[in-house]
Every structure is written in structure tokens, then in C-alpha cells.
């Protein structure tokens, strides 16, 4: 699927290369939608800008760092994630109903959407290609330990793995365990330790 096709299709339209078929078709659709008054081109530009520059995993990293630094915030995050995340200014599309699940020495959480690509946009941005790909979606629920091993994560056999298949109206984010190195850090320094995959649950920090 998507990720596997990158080597085979030259759809990149920079560098003076010829536009691919799909690039031409999307361009035609955009032109038609503008002509019919369905969309405004400036609004499309603004949407792209928002998801390329404002909305991404640094938002989630700030949420995690706050939870590591402020026990009262962490309690609010685990009991009403949508409201606690909104305290930091992150809300909206694909994060309207959030749940945060906490990793502990006994429990490791990971997120998938086996049916499509559901993902918590306000805190993590748009999902990476691998998250949307058939290999991850097919195996995350059946063989989470095998999937984690591919990401270089090996957990003790006694650790319970909880896979959250977010196929309906709830969007999930993992609260990773704070690494020992973060103990004497500021909140901003802690945020810099938090990775996107750590908040999906396919990496340890």
C-alpha cells in the first residue's frame, strides 16, 4: 500500500518532472471545486499550512511533559483527556473525544486503527505512512509483540500489552513512562525527549 509504492511511482511534481496522473486529477478536482464555489483556494493553503507547521507531535510532547511535571495535570489528563489537552490549546478535528492511556512497568499501550487511519490529529498531527499501511494495521492486533520487535522494542513476557484499536469515535494517545534521565530536567527539556512513536506506543523513551 501507500508506503510500499513510494519507490515505484514518480508522483513528485517538483524539479520540472511531468505531473503524474493522480496529480493531474487532483489539480483538475481543485480547479473544478474552486470554479463551482465549493472551496476557496486560500482556505486550502491555510489548511495545508496548519497541518505542516502548527499541528503535529510537538503538541503531544508538551502534553506529556506537562503530565510528567504536574501530578494534578496528569490526573486530569487520565480522567478527562479532551479537557486537559484543551488546557494547552490543542483541540478539534480528530481529537474531539480523547482518551490518554498510561504506560507503567506492568502495562504497555499501543494505538492502531485496523479499519482505516484514525489518529489523534490535535496532539500528533497527521499519521506517518507506516501507521496507515497494511503491515501495521493487519498485525498490531494479532501480534503486537512481533510488531514492537520490528520497532526495536522488547518487553518482558509478564508485561501486559494493551492494543487500542481506535476504529470508532474515540482517539487515543499513549502517556509514555518518564525516562530516568528526565528527572532533573525542566518541562521544556522533558518535552524534547518525547517522540511521536512514544505516544503511539511503538517506542520506549
Amino acid at each position, binding site marked *: 500500500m501507500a508506503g510500499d509504492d513510494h519507490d515505484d511511482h514518480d508522483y513528485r511534481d517538483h524539479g520540472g518532472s511531468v505531473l503524474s496522473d493522480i496529480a493531474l486529477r487532483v489539480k483538475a478536482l481543485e480547479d473544478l471545486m474552486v470554479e463551482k464555489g465549493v472551496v476557496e483556494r486560500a*482556505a486550502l493553503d491555510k489548511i495545508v499550512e496548519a497541518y505542516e507547521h502548527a499541528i503535529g507531535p510537538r503538541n503531544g510532547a508538551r502534553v506529556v511533559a506537562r503530565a510528567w511535571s504536574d501530578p494534578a495535570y496528569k490526573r486530569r489528563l487520565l480522567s478527562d483527556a479532551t479537557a486537559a489537552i484543551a488546557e494547552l490549546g490543542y483541540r478539534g478535528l480528530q481529537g474531539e473525544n480523547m*482518551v490518554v492511556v498510561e504506560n507503567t512497568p506492568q502495562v504497555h499501550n499501543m494505538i492502531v486503527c485496523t479499519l482505516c487511519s484514525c489518529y489523534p490529529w490535535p496532539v500528533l498531527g497527521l499519521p506517518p505512512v507506516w501507521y*496507515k499501511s497494511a503491515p501495521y494495521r493487519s498485525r498490531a492486533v494479532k501480534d503486537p509483540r512481533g510488531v514492537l520487535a520490528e520497532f526495536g522494542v522488547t518487553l518482558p513476557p509478564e508485561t501486559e500489552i494493551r492494543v487500542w484499536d481506535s476504529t470508532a469515535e474515540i482517539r487515543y494517545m499513549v502517556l509514555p513512562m518518564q525516562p530516568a534521565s528526565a528527572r532533573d530536567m525542566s518541562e521544556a527539556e522533558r518535552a524534547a525527549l518525547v517522540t511521536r512513536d512514544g505516544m503511539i506506543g511503538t517506542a520506549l523513551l
Partner: protein
Amino acid sequence: MNGMHDMGGMDGFGPIRREDNEPVFHADWERRMFALASAIPFAVPMSDDHFRQEIERVAPATYLKSDYYELWYRAHMALLQQRGVIEHGRPEGTKPLAAETVMAAIGAGASTRMPADGITARFAVGDRVTARNIHPSGHTRLPRYARGRSGVIDADRGVFSFADSNARGDGPCPQHLYTVAFAGEALWGEDAGNDTVYLDLWESYLDPATR
């Protein structure tokens, strides 16, 4: 529908291919398709349920061969054709999303949560339930791997519009949505590890477990 999209538990797709420092978009047409898909529903009534249903209707071989945003293109072409927009243009009485309201619109979101007044919950946390063995020909969010399997209600998430009914055009049919915990063994057999799959399921998908 029992489509190609319902992948949980399948084998044979190979290793998970990751990309270091992956960009948000890989080509300009992906940027434009994402933005179109985000903006069009403000002027043309459609929900994510309708959108997902159209992606699921893509033939299995095409689904697997297509880039992610190519599926978005196909789904939107189908939705726009069904709604007469390709032929007749923007529906009367609607307005396009304006650039200056984009950030507010993203922040407002489009929650499918509905008022819970008078809608009772059939199940409580801790109840054992069985996912129905149903195979609807239209849109459903009950994955095949859970059908006929039993688990435990882990959380009642409140009342939401029901995707299956909304996609069919039968209205929201608001009902409770539950997180159900399925032991790995119940889904994958005795070789499964110490793992649990948590799946959000609407009340219509569930029966009380008989064992």
C-alpha cells in the same frame, strides 16, 4: 462490508516500512487532496461515515495498490457525484469555508457525540458481552476479527451517532459506545500472548455474553 480495509489479523503484508524524518506530505498533490477533503464538507453535506464507506467500496485490488490520498480522491469523486456537485455545483444555501475561519473550524472539530438524555445504557462496566456475528453489506465499524468473540465492557464512552446507520442514510440512531476488552486468546486462540485488544463498539454490535 467485508472489504479489503478490514485488515486486523491478516498475514502476508510484509515488514513495516518506516521512513526517517518523514514529511507530513510526500507530494504537492497530497497536500491539495488533504486540504480539499478538509474543506469540501463545509459546503457539501457529508460525514466521515460516508467518506469511509466510499473508501471501503474501492475494489480490493485497487485499494491495495493505491496511495493513501488516492483513495481519498476516489472517495470524494464518488461523494461529489452522488450529491450532484460535479454536475450542478455547490448545494444551495451552503457557503465555502473561508481562509480566515480555517483555524477556528479545525479547533471546533466535528464531534459525533450526541445528547445522552433518555438514552439508556444496556451494559455496564464489567459486563461480559459478545460481539454479534453480523456481515452487513454496507459500512460498519465492527471488525471481522471481533465478530462472535466475547469480551468485557471496560468503559462507557457516552452516546454517539451510529456510523452504520448514518452511512446508510438512516440518521444518527444515537446510542452508547463502549470500549470492550478482548483477551488475546479469545481473538487469536491459545497461542496468543498476554495481550488485550481494546475496541470501541456501539451498543447495536453487542449482546450479553451467554458464557
